[in-house]
């Protein structure tokens, strides 16, 4: 867990072994991530490389979202708005202007962050989890309605088709290039998010989550910090949106629909929102399950809803929460 503090003195030997396991673990993960697309492309099917990229996109989205949910303690039901704004703004730039891809990629997350400032400005000042959920959901649906009805600008429910992608990451022949492109973006974003949650700002967020009243009485302006967290989260959700648009080379209003917000919540809750990599696990499980289940039935929502109900009733700490608990029990001491 990332909350261990420096006064925690451990045996030096154990420390070295830990470092060894940590380093070798990362090397193995790195090798798997590099070998994976080649293995899948040449042995099973290209589709699985595509699926792997989809996992990357959703991992990024889920972990961006978790800045708000897990670290900020804010239950946003409208994060599809930021994913969607990222996807739409980059696509519109690419389709309607001669903006180069790199520039569109840079601008779009800022557009998402701007949406985050606007929606966040109203949302963070309302009191209570319920109002917060109601307001974020409502704003996201407003964005959906705009994308759906403003045909002259957004192409309405036809969506934006045929987004041109530079040949170096083009997915016409192989998904491998795009895979590495997405992976690099993901790693950069995760590194930044990791730094943010461990930074003083991340610590402030945790104090707000734990006890906003106490935080206010040590001088922290709760609303300002929440707004900043919301904006950061919107920014990275926007990055995920751009990746999505480039991968699919098309965008439809569906990316702004409430069910998108619902799926990203489920990923966070399924994976465990109080652990940094929790939502990543949740996202991976969900994307793979989705691909598996939708190949059999069109009733994905039924599955999603029932899973969510079961988690709420029986495993409110998510999969990683469960693992940590089991691990703690194994070690014979209580972990939090």
């Amino acid at each position, binding site marked *: 867990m990332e909350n261990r503090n420096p006064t925690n003195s451990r045996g030096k030997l154990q420390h070295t072994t830990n470092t060894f396991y940590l380093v070798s673990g990362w090397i193995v993960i790195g090798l798997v991530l590099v070998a994976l697309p080649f293995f899948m492309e040449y042995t099973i099917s290209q589709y699985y490389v595509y699926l792997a990229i989809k996992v990357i996109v959703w991992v990024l989205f889920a972990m961006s979202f978790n800045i708000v949910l897990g670290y900020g303690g804010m*239950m946003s*039901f409208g994060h599809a708005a930021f994913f969607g704004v990222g996807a739409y703004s980059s696509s519109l730039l690419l389709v309607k202007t001669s903006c180069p891809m790199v520039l569109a990629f840079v601008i779009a997350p800022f557009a998402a962050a701007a949406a985050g400032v606007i929606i966040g400005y*109203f949302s963070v*000042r*309302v*009191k*209570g*989890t*319920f*109002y917060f*959920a*109601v*307001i974020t*959901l*409502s*704003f996201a*649906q*407003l964005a959906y*309605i*705009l994308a759906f*009805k*403003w045909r002259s600008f957004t192409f309405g429910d036809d969506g934006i088709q045929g987004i041109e992608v530079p040949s170096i990451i083009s997915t016409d022949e192989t998904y491998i290039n795009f895979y590495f492109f997405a992976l690099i973006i993901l790693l950069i974003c995760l590194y930044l998010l990791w730094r943010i949650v461990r930074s003083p700002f991340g610590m402030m967020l945790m104090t707000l989550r734990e006890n906003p009243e106490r935080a206010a009485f040590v001088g922290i302006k709760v609303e300002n910090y929440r707004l900043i967290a919301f904006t950061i989260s919107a920014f990275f959700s926007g990055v995920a949106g751009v990746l999505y648009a480039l991968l699919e080379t098309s965008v439809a209003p569906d990316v702004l629909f*409430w*069910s998108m917000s*619902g799926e990203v*919540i489920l990923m966070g*809750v399924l994976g465990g929102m109080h652990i940094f990599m929790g939502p990543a696990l949740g996202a991976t499980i969900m994307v793979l399950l989705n691909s598996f289940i939708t190949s059999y039935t*069109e*009733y*994905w*929502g*039924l599955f*999603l*809803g*029932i899973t*969510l*109900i079961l*988690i*709420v*009733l029986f495993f*409110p700490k998510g999969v990683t929460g469960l693992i940590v608990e089991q691990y703690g029990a194994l070690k014979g001491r209580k972990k939090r």
Partner: protein
Amino acid sequence: MAFDSSMLFIQFVSGLSRAMVLFLMASGLTLIFGVMKVINFAHGVFYMLGAYIAFTLTALLTGPLGFWAAIVIAPTVVALIGGLVEIILLRRIYEKEHLLQILLTYSLIFVFNDAVKLLWGEEMRIVSLPKILSGFVTLFSHRFPIYYFFIITIGILVALLLWVFLSRTRIGKVLRAAAEHKDMVALLGYDVGGLFTVVFIIATWLGGLAGAVIAPTVRLSLGMDMEIIIECFIVAIVGGLGSIWGALLGALITGQIYAFGILIVPNYAMAFLFALAALIIIFRPNGLLGKPLQTG
């Protein structure tokens, strides 16, 4: 743009009928919140179910009988489903954190949308009106659909019924007391669990009624629950969550703003509602008639 008076008047009446449907919905939402301190994100689902069940009933029983049966039976069936949802699911989470409460009702939207897809399919459905309600009346030399007045009448009747129920009956008084001091009511020997079931049944009955009443005026489609729930949230924000009369006031205001907003920018009338909600959040965070929230 110049609007003649007949157009304005007809928008006013249509806004009023829309307000009544919103009131049916928002009063249920606010009743649940007031007593159980839970926001039912799935409240729109019961509205959608009401509409679809009304569709099936009018298709089964052709002629005027079908419609009247739908108005009576659809809300009842919906209320039964609501009661089951409360007993099987909701009562397990009252003591848990808000986040889990919200998640549970939210997940019901997924489940019921797919259930409707499974039972009724994805194509749009239309419910026809009996002859007696499908004509026009002439009032002050303007023509209005009779059905508008029918909806308005139902809304007023329900508002009166709710008022009598909450202020004149014993159980209504207990409910109001429960909304203020849950523990006190339990101490006095009332079964709070049973009370919650009753509230949820009443609220989902109102939602089902709203759906059955609106059914002949719209095309039924998947997702109609989300359209209405967002408007209900706005009504609740404007009126103040937990206050029934706030729900009525909020519904009247949003209904009118929507009706006249449509005259100005047909496609984006919703934007006016959002602007209204934003203003209320900034200047009157507890809504027009709401009390300060004590919940985290």
